[in-house]
């Protein structure tokens, strides 16, 4: 393999960066660099330094990003783009130091177009903040990602992010066009054909999707023109309790096929999840003991539509013994859906004591028919690891409908495993990666995909992604694209094991 030799971040580079973005926006002290070394997935805190970048820059415009990439490309310095650092596939975690380009200073709304119903933003803007601004004009940004109050559009695009209300589409369905800076610093406008605000065009290759979900390996998206929605008249969450996971699973298919257009999502809580909530969730509202599994549904639309749909969903739920869990639980739980996705001191050791646990959120795409098998296998694995090493804990699973605009097909399948990150050692970290691989193997066994939402770049996943999940011909094309767009392998090097694209012969 050709040895890749990277340039050093020295005084000269710092000076040039400062000329591009201004002194205040070049950060070199260790604490600035270390706080931008991790994302939200379990992090090997015992070897934090391995992932710290050499310098952090905060650009304010497309032009500045372009200049940074030109400099990095000229000097062969690794560049890792960073949105909010809330991703769960390590996309923003540097593997070889270099420059972290933190895009959050680029947080302006550039245009609100009320006639063509789209909004153009710089990609450092946060989802919730965008919605707060649109609300002033009566509009809605429906991208209901778990990290809604913290993640930013750029990171959502870079990871091909997923949302709870799949009925409104995922981020790939909500973006019309983008301004994107290629690894060489060249700026392109990519969308549907040549139209910035066009929603569908048959002109040219469909390259828009190439620049969604590349985990920062193909450049940095700096502006995006996004769909904007009228605010729905009503929001109606309804939660139902079942006597077993299998009852809930059977009922989910009936819900999926109901044809209710205002149904935004349905989510199955498995039996281990209900146990974990009973045990360790402060916001949890107690359920009767015979409730072992839950389906959450949520509706958005006009009052007349949702009223009709609500009557229907009660009928459907009852077919498999689903009991409505009441307004307080439904509305309360739905309202706090963004706040509870990770809290330390929830995981417990074998002796029952809480510990300094961090959170792993699996997000495989699994077909409906395979769910019972996967759920069983996953919990067996999680329990085995807990017993063996006593630093992992099984916090149960959620299964969300995955398909855009329709409720059927497959599910984003999430098993939550807690890891005592503060006390990690290299040996335990390796055990964790082994568990991660075993979990992913179950998914591949049933013809699923390792990640519906976060990306296939996590250690433990990535080796399987490139050797087992992706067709060899497809991975070959990925390498060709990478090599051609990023001749010096500066953009997020190491991710998707794409160094192999630069091997000689």
């Amino acid at each position, binding site marked *: 393999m050709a040895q890749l030799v990277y340039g050093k971040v020295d005084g000269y580079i710092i000076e040039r960066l400062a000329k591009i973005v201004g002194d205040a*926006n070049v*950060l070199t002290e260790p*604490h600035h660099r*270390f*706080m931008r070394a*991790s994302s939200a997935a379990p992090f090997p805190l015992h070897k934090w330094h391995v992932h710290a970048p050499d310098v952090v820059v905060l650009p304010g415009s497309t032009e500045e990003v372009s200049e940074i990439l030109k400099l990095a490309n000229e000097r062969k310095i690794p560049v890792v783009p960073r949105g*909010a650092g809330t991703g769960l596939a390590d996309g923003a975690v540097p593997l070889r130091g270099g420059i972290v380009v933190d895009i959050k200073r680029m947080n302006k709304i550039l245009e609100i177009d009320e006639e063509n119903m789209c909004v153009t933003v710089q990609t450092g803007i946060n989802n919730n903040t965008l919605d707060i601004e649109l609300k002033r004009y009566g509009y809605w940004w429906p991208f209901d990602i778990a990290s809604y109050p913290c993640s930013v559009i750029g990171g959502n695009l870079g990871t091909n992010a997923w949302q709870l209300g799949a009925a409104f589409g995922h981020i790939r369905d909500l973006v019309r066009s983008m301004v994107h800076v290629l690894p060489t610093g060249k700026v392109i406008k990519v969308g549907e054909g040549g139209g910035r605000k066009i929603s569908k065009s048959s002109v040219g290759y469909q390259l828009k999707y190439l620049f969604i979900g590349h985990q920062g390996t193909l450049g940095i998206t700096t502006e995006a023109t996004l769909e904007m929605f009228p605010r729905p008249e009503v929001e109606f969450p309804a939660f139902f309790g079942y006597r077993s996971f299998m009852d809930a699973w059977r009922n989910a298919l009936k819900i999926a096929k109901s044809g209710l257009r205002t149904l935004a999502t349905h989510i199955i809580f498995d039996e281990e999840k209900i146990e974990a909530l009973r045990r360790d969730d402060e*916001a949890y509202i107690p359920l009767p003991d015979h409730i072992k599994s839950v389906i959450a549904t949520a509706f958005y639309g006009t009052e007349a539509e949702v009223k009709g749909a609500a009557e229907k969903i009660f009928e459907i739920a009852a077919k498999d013994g689903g009991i409505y869990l009441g307004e307080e639980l439904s509305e309360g739980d739905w309202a706090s859906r963004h*706040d509870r996705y990770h809290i330390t001191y929830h995981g417990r050791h074998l002796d029952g004591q809480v510990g*300094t646990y961090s959170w792993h959120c699996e997000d495989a795409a699994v077909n409906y028919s395979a769910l019972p098998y996967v759920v069983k296998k996953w919990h067996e694995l999680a329990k085995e690891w807990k017993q063996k090493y006593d630093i992992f804990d099984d916090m149960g699973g959620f299964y969300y409908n995955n398909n855009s605009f329709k409720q059927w097909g497959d599910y984003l399948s999430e098993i939550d495993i807690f890891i005592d990150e503060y006390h990690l050692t290299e040996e335990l970290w390796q055990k964790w990666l082994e568990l991660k691989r075993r979990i992913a193997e179950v998914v591949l066994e049933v013809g699923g995909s390792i990640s519906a939402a976060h990306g296939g770049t996590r250690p433990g996943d990535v080796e399987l992604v490139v050797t087992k999940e992706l067709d060899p011909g497809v991975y070959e094309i990925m390498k060709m694209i990478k090599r051609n767009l990023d001749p010096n392998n500066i953009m997020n090097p190491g991710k998707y094991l794409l160094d192999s694209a630069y091997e000689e012969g």
Partner: protein
Amino acid sequence: MTTAYTYKPWLVEKWKDDWVPEEVAIDCYATFACRHKFCREVCPVYQETGNESHISYGFHVALLSVSRGYEKLHNLGNTFTYCLQCGACQLRCPNTLFTGDFYRITNEHNVLVTKTRNELLRLGFKFKGSDDMLKAINQIVKDTEEARLSLTEWAKDLDLPRYGETILFTDYFMATQMTNILRLIAKILKVAGIKFGIIENPKPTLPYELDYLGEKGIQYIKENIEALKKAGAKTVIVPDPHVYVSLTKEYPRLTGSEVPFDVVFVTDYIWNLIKEGKLVPKKPVNKKVTYHDPCMLNKVSGIWESPRNILKSIPGIEFIDEDHVTQWYYCCGNGASEARTFKILHEDLSYRIGLKRLNRALDTGAKTLAVACPHCNEQFNEVKLKSKTEIEILDIFEILAESLEIR
């Protein structure tokens, strides 16, 4: 009233350039582990700088990096200047919301900032603006010690005793710089038939900044509590949100015990009088008004209803409300300091934050911004003057007094 506060070991233990206690490290880890960073968008400083180092997550992780040997404390000084101590982050923190009290990991960002700055100064590590910051605080001490400020002059014609079960208490700031508001409050209380006194020589209360004064800070607390006890205080009415935070949060933190009397914020007290019919606002005040939630009231003390209720009780007012949760994102730009230290550390930033808030108020269609805090009042008037923004800044009690026809 009992105020919940947690007592964390870092408040007493001394740190080193390359060491913080394990309890601090684990506490910082709880924020690092979260990685939600809900403390980010809500932070008025971050909204302007776009720099994540300036949020609660950033501060905690910076200290965690010290505990792991990757960073030295002396490098953190400048970063730790970027905080208004407005309290938005600690309120929005999932640790506070869900497990805070139970596992004693409530996010106490404001105290952490004070503690870190204080340790830096103790170890001799100056940071940008630290000399001027200390100078401003010490000037207040000097003025107090030399009795340069007459703290009861404002009340000289109001015939207020220096004793009573009910005491109207404030420190030097309102008593010297917002005397018009203080006088209106006293007159409103008198109209309602409340018997109350004041104390002769209140000491500065300086929320989150008494630490910098060491023993002197503790002495001021003791002197204030003694003076209030001696005056016979059972209920203390506080018209300055910053003083209120000191009495209800900072005094217990620094002394280990609650103050021995009830502390009531003035808007709560006066709204009760209106409810009981002891005050009846009659004269219409024809204004389009929106209200600014002071950080020390809304974010730190959870008081947001009574100021709105008072405004709504005044005839003629068209009240355009921005809810108090939306206002977690806002700040006047002064921050928690009574000594205006954020303005000393970051003058331009403070101005931008204040201007943004004034523009938000105008966006609602209001012509008047009602305030309930003398520090917000001062800051907004400065920003208004500098930016030539056309908006009227009025204290709630100026509006109420007009309706009650009190001058």
